């Protein structure tokens, strides 16, 4: 595949190191422009970017466990203990 970046553009190896700053909005305007110009011309880095987004999304979907009844009781007791302390 032909990559069409300019001389001042990023190479793929740099792209994978800049990707988090890109996704977090930490790149300067000119860095972001160069990053996006590379993405527009490189299907592999486009795939890599998509994979990072998928990874982040999967990480955000990790299950949230509910409190068990026993734990609710424990925390209720903790609260009563504190109230007693407070007088």
């Amino acid at each position, binding site marked *: 595949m032909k990559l069409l970046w300019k001389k001042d553009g990023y190479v793929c190896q740099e792209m994978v190191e800049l990707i988090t700053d890109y996704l977090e909005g930490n790149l300067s305007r000119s860095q972001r422009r160069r990053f996006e110009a590379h993405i527009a011309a490189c299907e592999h880095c486009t795939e890599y970017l998509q*994979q990072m987004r998928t990874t982040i999304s999967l990480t955000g979907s990790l299950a949230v466990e509910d409190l068990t009844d026993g734990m609710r009781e424990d925390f209720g007791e903790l609260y009563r203990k504190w109230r007693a302390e407070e007088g």
Partner: protein
Amino acid sequence: MIGALARRSEPVTVDEDAELLARVRAGDQDAFVALVARHHASMLRLARSFVSSGAIAEEVVQDTWLGVLRGLDDFAGRSTFRTWLMRILVNRARSTGVRENRSVAVGDAGPVVDRERFDASGAWMSPPQHWVEDSDDRLQAQALTEEIQEALGQLPPRQREVVILRDVDGLTGQEVCEVLEISEANQRVLLHRGRSHLRGALESKLSAV
């Protein structure tokens, strides 16, 4: 599949915390338990990163809540309740001293993708293969979530802490810095390395053969 997985748990909103907190102050035990329930999974997950066992992590969480109750008057609302809560948790977890043998280094050094995968000019030589997305494959979705869970457990502790707070719990980068008392630059590096590791862990599962 990806779409189904993108669904997060209900975002923890600041207003609900404030409302529950007011009721806790007024003596409402149910409000306290509700407040605990909202943050419990996040707290346990983070505590687990600092201490060696689940039982100790649970103690740290309980201890944190007692500290929260005792320090309610100190919470001035300058940061969000969750940021304040997580900071207390981190302090308690650190002071348990169970982590004495863990490295406090930023994490591994070097590139996040093996340099062998690039040619001399820095272009992909062994590019990432397309990840197969199947919107109906619940089994695969389950497997991926487990894969992430496992990979998260294998990250260096500091990377794991940052990824948990930023990507699982959805704190902002700045809140993560406040909770862990690390610099912004440090946070960025840890997040980058952590996320890149997780992507690498999924790569083998998802790449088309």
